[in-house]
């Protein structure tokens, strides 16, 4: 499985890159920081069973002009492209986003408009070569309007919506779209936040995502318990949601 991964330098993406590599596959990393990319590529090489080198190129989710080039370099490096994965994303606390509207605009742009734009380039490329898999990390935060994640959740709701439609529309043509909805996962993104029950580790979450890619599952909650939690939350009456702080 030849994979282009946007966001493999940290957190869930780092763990997923390792999972893919350790199974003997090839990964091409794309991201915004050359130093971090080089160090992560070295890590993946040391973990590859055949010590195979991992390539990388620059791609900044805040700069849509970097998307096409990164995909082109990745495809050239890998030969045949099977999978494109996006784990990159931004998070900020609701209170910080409410205070700093410029930060809110950036987050909405990166998580929604630019991620979707990136996926559009990836979609065309995968369809042009006869199909493949597009796997993108959204969030349980997009499942219901909730007080603590009004803005971040909105960006992920939009993203989930797009990913679902894409899967309905193109699966027949060989493009499998996977929407991953992580619950709380202990990464740098959530450092400093109090972990709720059912918090997951990036390694376990990465294993689940890897399996979903292999099987082509269109929607994945991980850790799995969050699927149950969100099923309840989605059904709570508005009056209840207005009163609770979840």
């Amino acid at each position, binding site marked *: 499985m030849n994979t282009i991964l946007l966001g493999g*330098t*940290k*957190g869930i993406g*780092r763990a997923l890159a390792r999972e893919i590599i*350790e199974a003997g596959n090839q990964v091409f990393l794309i991201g*915004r*920081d050359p*130093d*971090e990319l*080089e*160090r*992560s590529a*070295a*890590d993946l*090489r*040391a*973990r590859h069973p055949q*010590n195979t080198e991992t390539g990388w190129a620059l791609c900044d989710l805040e700069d849509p002009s970097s998307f096409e080039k990164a995909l082109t370099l990745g495809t050239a490096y890998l030969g045949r492209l099977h999978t494109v994965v996006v784990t990159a994303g*931004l*998070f*900020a*606390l609701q209170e*910080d986003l409410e205070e700093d509207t410029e930060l809110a605009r*950036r*987050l909405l742009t*990166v998580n929604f408009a630019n991620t979707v734009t990136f996926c559009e380039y990836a979609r065309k490329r995968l369809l042009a070569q006869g199909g493949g898999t597009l796997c993108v990390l959204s969030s349980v935060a997009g499942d219901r309007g909730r007080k603590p994640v009004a803005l971040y959740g909105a960006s992920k709701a939009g993203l989930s919506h797009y990913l679902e439609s894409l899967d309905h529309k193109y699966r027949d043509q060989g493009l499998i779209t996977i929407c991953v909805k992580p619950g709380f996962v202990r*990464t*740098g*993104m959530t*450092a*400093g*936040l109090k972990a709720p029950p059912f918090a997951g580790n990036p390694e376990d979450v990465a294993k689940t995502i890897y399996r979903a890619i292999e099987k082509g599952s269109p929607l994945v909650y991980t850790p799995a318990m969050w699927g149950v939690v969100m099923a309840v939350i989605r059904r709570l009456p508005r009056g209840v949601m207005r009163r609770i702080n979840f």
Partner: protein
Amino acid sequence: MSLVSLNSSVEKNTDSGKQTRQVRELVASWGNQTRKGIVLRGERLKELSREAVLARGLGRSYGDSALPADESDILVETMMADRILAFDPESGHIRVEAGMSLFELNRLFLRRGFFCPVSPGTQFVTFGGMVASDVHGKMSHASGCFGSHHVNSMLMRVADGRLIECNADCEPDLFWATIGGMGLTGHILEVEFTLERITSPWIYSQSRRIANIDSFMDHLLDDGAQWPHGVGWIDCVSQGRNMGRGLLDVGRWASEDEAQGRSLPTKRRASFPMYLPEWALNRFTVKSFNTLYYWKHLQKKREGIRHPDDFFYPLDAILNWNKVYGRRGFTQYQCVLPSSAGRGAARHFLSVLTALGGASPLCVIKDCGEEGKGMLSFPMKGISIALDLAIRDNTQQIVDRLNQVVIELGGRIYLTKDTFTRAEDFRRMEPRLDAFLAVREKWDPKGKFSSAQSKRLFGR
């Protein structure tokens, strides 16, 4: 291949889209001692280490060395900085970020024919922690300590904010003070060392019953000469003729023929569910446990192929086993009794211990090997004894009394296990202390770095 080429000492500030949140939280040692402090977590050690006054790995040190001295102190937790930066399969040279764990290294390299040249009794430790404590293993009589004998070079963040690559040739005083220096000279960001080639991922081991402490002293030395790895478990409760009876476990890597190409399975681990109440551990339960452990070996001797996890890390089979000691926690007392104190030293130590009634279900004895080169490294030529003590009202007195014996015999204690030693006692057992403090003063004149332990023992 030059491994250092990958290390860029150039720094830049990248905007990660998020301010660092600083919240006070409860930080715990492996012995369940707790302190409040601020903990920073993330992948980017270069950035996170700037403000921190102490680095912390997987928190496997029993004592207060990885705990903040003060509520407002900032700690950097290294766990997420866990990448391999370079690996050369020809030579086994490897460079890793300080938060990488030994568990991960074993998971990746055992089956590829490599092992860390020194490994402590748990694999849930980071390489930063292994350098800071200059850990020794089952093989200390043969392979020495991790930092002293195997680290080639490391990248550090020092007190004035600079990044410094140090080794035996470059800033050697910083290098040797950091090895075994319990995090007090700066933050270790990257560690470079050489993996040992192994003949198979299996261990060929022999374990047998030993009748008493005198017999133990003979066997540790004799068997040590024949086997690269060895450790003994002794019963610290029995007195008289049986005093110091126990098991001696020795081993070596199995040959290809012995391993017969069997693939190594991944071990499942249980987790201890809760803190036991204080009454659960008493003289009677401990004694029964020890008797069972001793007689588990019905034949006097057992020999054969074993999983390396069973051999090196028996305690890792149950995660959080430290909860057995209840909420009040426990401490480990580990000391080395130098060869110069004579053969009777261990017997003397044990007789004081059994008279104090410091019941411990686990007491480990090993041949310490050569003295470490780290300025505060624990090992010296002699016998190391380690025992667990559940914390009770009289724990301070027990430690004080044992320290008195150790001082008389010319030995010393292991800082990474310690919570109770008094500053004046530590000074009496550590002639190297002033030299270490002078290097610490040189690299950190303003006193930026500290831990709960350094405040207790060195005043800051």
